[in-house]
Structures are given as C-alpha cells and as structure tokens.
C-alpha cells in the first residue's frame, strides 16, 4: 500500500518549473554549441548547481565524477554531459536509500509510531496534517499528538489539521512536558487500536542543547510503551534552506536517530539542493516532498524525477 501512489507528479513538476527553467537555462547556456565539455562549461555548470543549494563539496565531487565519466566515452556533447551529471546526482540520492515507491511499513507495527522533528518554521505541523490525511485515506486509523507545547497556538494549529484530515488529536495544556504528550498519544493509540500515531514536535534550533536533549526524551518516552518505536523519525527541512541544513541534520540525528527526510516548500523557486549533502552525511533517504500548503500537497520523493525536474524543461 502506498498512500501517495495515486498522486501524480504534475504538481511537483509544475512546482519546480521555475527552478527548472533557471537551472536548465544555466546548463544549456553552458553547453550550447560546444562539442565537448570544457573548463568554462564546467564553471557554468558549477554555477547552476551551486545556485540550487547543492553545496560546494557535492558540486565539486559531482563535476569531478562527471568529468571522469565523460573522459571514458566518445560522446561528450551536451546531451551526454547532462545525462552524466543527472545520473551522478540521482545515484547520490539513491545510495542513501531513496526510492520512489517508498511506503512506511504501517502493517509491521500497531500502532506505527512516527515522530516529526525539525527547526523552527520548517513545515512540521503542516506535514503532520498531510501525512495524517494520506494514511487516513488509505484506510488507516490515525491519531496525531501535539507535542509542540511551546509555540503560541501550536495546539490549535494541529487541531485544525486533524479536523481537515478527519483524524484524532491529542493535546495537553501549553507548557506541558512534550514527552508526556508523546507518551499519551501512543498510549491512546494502543488502547483504542489505532493504526498510526504521528507526533508533532516543537521547532527547535539544533544549537540548543537543552531542546535537543528533550527530543531524546520524547523518543524514550514512546519506546517505554512500544520498545520498537518510533518506527520512523522524519526530519523536516525547509526546501529553501541553505548549507546550514547539514548542521541541522547532523545535530538532530545525534539527538534522536533519524530514519528519513521530508523536504517542504518545494513549490517555490528554491530547489532543495541542500538535501544532497544531508543524504551523504547521514546516509538517510528523502521520503517525501511538500509542494504547497494544501492537505494534498505531499508527494513521494522520487530521486530520478527530482533530479530530472531540476534539469528538464
């Protein structure tokens, strides 16, 4: 069962059109009329890739690998060069485990517990709403837990999403211990035989030690009830984030083991290229992308499509 399989990729494509245009223009500009890829072309390619937030290290490595890939083949024209870059980039995402047909193994545990974490304003709560809706639509019963007990009206925000998704919501008074909320969410799911429990957490900067250790506590609280839980812990990254996203991911993964990434806000002109470095550093896959503020705007992450979408007109 893949709750997102029926979503077509037109929206993602449309969302990425603007970014794609610029990147494609950059690359085409770099390659037009040139039989083989030369230094200047490489530099222009570098610009296109860095402008996508892919980051210097990855760009350097990618271009290096592309260069040697090209060196061994007869056809070194524009088409071949682009293809090599694409292949190389997609391979990096796939190495970290991303596949277009990912589906959480919801049937393997009951309740299947999902923890959603990330820095402030990344898109966590919205993503929780979207996930809940999709699982619900796939015939699962769902409860969401409002473990952001800090931000003003965070409870109310999640309540609205729960209502839209037609799922249960568990919240406690503002200022309550977030691990107590997480605990009670899973406890309720167990008691009532709910299939999926999704815990929304407060945004926190990865530099704040006390807030980061709180995450570990939330994970442990959940594990008290369900030793194998959380079964997925998603880090939500803002698609517009720059190179700091890598530090974010590293610090979060130290605080609590991450199993996947979700890149939100890819419906703008930002390209989300920072995820390449994250996948490389943490060896975890990207699972979903957020492409809007609507409840349907979550899609499975397809590494090839993602890379393709960066380049193709």
């Amino acid at each position, binding site marked *: 069962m893949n709750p997102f399989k029926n979503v077509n990729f037109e929206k993602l494509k449309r969302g990425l059109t603007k970014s794609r245009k610029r990147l494609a223009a950059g690359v085409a500009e770099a390659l037009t009329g040139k039989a083989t890829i030369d230094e200047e072309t490489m530099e222009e390619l570098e610009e296109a890739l860095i402008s996508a937030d892919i980051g210097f290290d990855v760009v350097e490595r990618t271009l290096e690998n592309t260069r040697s890939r090209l060196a061994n083949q007869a056809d070194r024209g524009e088409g071949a060069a682009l293809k090599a870059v694409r292949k190389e980039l997609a391979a990096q995402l796939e190495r970290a485990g991303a596949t277009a047909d990912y589906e959480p193994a919801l049937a393997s545990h009951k309740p299947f517990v999902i923890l959603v974490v990330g820095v*402030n*304003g*990344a898109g966590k709560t919205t993503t929780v709403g979207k996930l809940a809706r999709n699982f619900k639509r796939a015939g699962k019963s769902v409860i969401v837990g409002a473990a952001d007990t800090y931000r003003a009206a965070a409870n109310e925000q999640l309540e609205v999403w729960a209502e839209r998704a037609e799922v249960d919501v568990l919240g406690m008074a503002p200022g309550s211990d977030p691990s107590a909320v997480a605990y009670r969410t899973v406890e309720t799911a167990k008691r009532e035989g709910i299939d999926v429990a999704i815990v929304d957490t407060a945004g926190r900067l990865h530099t704040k030690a006390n807030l980061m250790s709180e995450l570990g506590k939330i994970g442990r609280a959940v594990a008290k009830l369900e030793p194998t839980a959380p079964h997925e812990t998603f880090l939500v990254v803002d698609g517009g984030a720059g190179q700091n996203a890598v530090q974010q991911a590293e610090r979060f993964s130290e605080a609590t083991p991450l199993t996947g990434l979700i890149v939100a806000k890819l419906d703008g002109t930002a390209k989300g290229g920072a995820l390449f470095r994250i996948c490389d550093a943490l060896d975890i896959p990207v699972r979903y992308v957020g492409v809007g503020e609507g409840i349907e705007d979550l899609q499975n992450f397809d590494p090839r499509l993602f890379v393709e979408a960066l380049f193709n007109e």
Partner: protein
Amino acid sequence: MLDELTRKIDGALKKIRGQGKLTEANISDALREIRRALLDADVNYKVAKRFVARVKEKSLGAEVMRSITPSQLITKHIHDELTELLGGEAAELRLNASGATAILVVGLQGSGKTTFSGKLAKRLKERGGKPGLVACDVYRPAAIEQLKKLGESIDVPVLTSDEKDPRRIATSAPAFAKERKLDALIYDTAGRLHVDEEMMAEVADIKAIVDPNETLFVVDSMTGQDAVNSAKAFNERVDYDGVVLTKLDGDSRGGCALSIREVVGKPIKFASVGETLDALEPFHPDRLASRILDRGDVVTFVEKAQAHADELESEELEEKLRKNAFDFEDFLKQIKVIKKMGSLSSILAMIPGASKLGAAADVDDDALVKVEAIVNSMTREERREPKLLNGSRRKRIARGSGSTIQDVNRLLKRFKEMKRMMGGIAKSGLPKTFPKGPSPF
C-alpha cells in the same frame, strides 16, 4: 625545547612574509578561498562573484606591511567591505509624527513574521508607546490565535476578525487604533511564496490600503541561494523599507543577508535571536560580517598588526635591519610588542598555516617568558653588544633569569644565526621575516 620551538616557528613564519603590494597573483589563492567561504555561508553565487571582484579591483596595488601577508590583507579588506555593505545608512524605524505609525510585516512561510510582530509590539510598548497588532493571516491554521496569544502575553490589543479577506481587516484597522487610542499598528500578514501571483497581488493591495510608514521583509537567516529571488520579488511588489533577519540564535552563517543587501539594497533593521518576545536586537553589521566570512582570526591579526605598525616596522628598526645592526635591545622591544598584541600562541594561532605546522598548538608562552627573562637579565651594554657575553657573564645571566647556561647559549646561537639570515635577506632585498624579534628562540 627551544630548538624544537625554533624549527616550528621558523616554518610558520616563512609563510607570513610580506610581499610589498597586493597583486592579481599574490591574492588569487586567498580570493578563491574567500569566494568558497562565502558560498558555504549561502551567499548567492553571482553576488559572491561580483562582490569579490569588486573588492579585488579596489584593493589591487595596496601596500602590504611587512608583518602580514597579501592573503591576510585582502581578507581584511573583504571583511571591511562586507561590514560597510551590510551596514550602510542608519536603519532606524520611521515613526509617524502625526497619526498612528503603521508597520507592515511580510515574508515567506515560516520565516518568523508573527513572532517578530509580537517582539516589535513589546519593544514599542516598553519605550512608552501604545502599539496594537492586526491579524491579517487568514490562511494558516490558528495563525490569528497565535497572534492573539502573543498579544495577550504582553498586554497589547490585537485586532482579529472572522473576515475572510485580509484587505478588509486592514481597512478596519485605523478605526480600531482610534478607538483604543493606539499610536502604532503592526500588521502581521500570511506567509506567501513570491511566485504565488494571487497572494503577491494581495499583499500589494494590503500595502496600498495600509500605506505603512515601514514595510519590513522578514527573512530566515538559514535561507540559501534562493533568498535573492524572494527578496527581489517582494521588493518589486511592496517596495519594503527594511529587512529583519531571524533565527540568528542558530549557527547559520547568514550569507543570505549579503545577497539581499547587494541585490535590493535595503537596510537590515533588526536581528531576531530567539523564540521569546524579548529576543530582538538591533542589527550589528560587523558581527554579521565576521559570521559570514568566518575569518575572524585573520581579521583580528591584521588589525593588531596594523595597530602596532609603528612599533613593528619603525624607520629605526628598518634601518637597523638594513645595516644588520639588530641587537637584543630591538629584540626586547619586539617581544614587548608581541606581548601587547596578545600571547605568542594566540598570535601564532591567528596565522593561517601555523596550525597546520603544529606550531600554534605546541608553542608555549613560557618559552617567550623565559627568553624575555634571559634578555632582561643582560645589561644594556650586553644587549647592544652581544659579543661582550663571555662565560662568566652568561653564567650571571642564567642565574639572574632562572634558566640554565645551556638555555642562554642556545639563545645566543640562535640570535647569531638569525642575524646572519637577516643579513642575507637584507642584501638580496627580500623581505624579512616576522615577527623579526622572536625568531631566535
């Protein structure tokens, strides 16, 4: 122990010889590294390129004092330009002298608009004002509730409404201000993407209705390369007056601020540094410049060297070096300058490359203290004329400085070698090593 030290310091010092003037050739490596640092800090690709090229153009031909390298000097120039560009004109909020001041807060989703609105209200209130908040985000779930709660927490009235169109809420705000006798209104708007035509038209309409004294564009400091696109698009639609950088309490380098400054030219007015409503600071261009460039050690080193330029490179000293008449008196002076600049290890730590040589890590400042003690135990005559230092004098000096006769011998030997080296350099016209004094450790 002194030998080991000498070897290391010599190695480090070789790296830091001055080279006359800044030229294409002697700064190209440094500029490449700096451009890389800017990109790693999320400065937009084109902006980084343009900025570096501009500073280079301006800097070519600049004199490099002998105590620093061209790389260090160009790094300092970049830092200064960066500070200047980020700073610019004074960025005070324009308050309305006659009626109520209107402040419009706009930006992308999740950038920190609502929190900033609350912070600004708190600030105005603390300064004796009577601000109110206007909730114009009718889209995000519980956005109005969020602002209402923030308002309650600081006892500031919040205009909320069931109205579905934020334009109408904005229209009704002046009456609210009048009724409550408010002297400032802060309009919190929904987050929107700059490519969302409908939403951008809406915010432009809101601006036309509100006719604000200040429109502020709120940007997450963790934003990457795309910052230029949103900043430009928002500027075209609402022509904002200033920028608010948020989430600076994290460790992002904040290069997007440079991109925005360069591309739209609007001043940065506030730094948001936390989730609580008191975490608002005026913007400090120099701090952000250091954060973006991440070369604070080099900049500090150049500043120190420049501040002590007279002592480090005085005419008298130059003359002595040229004539190879450098003596322990000069040496002692140099040690004093170095001590003023900071400890030897801290200076070495600032020298790029020194740490790679392991010099900075191992140099212990005790060695400097020891050498100074030895030199201090000499008489003035002995310092001027080291040849006088026979066996009994050396014994006296060792005793006086609490060191061994071997230490004294080693220092004298090193000093002689150094002078020979300097003589050679002076003759061949090559620049001398820095710091000239402490080489003979």
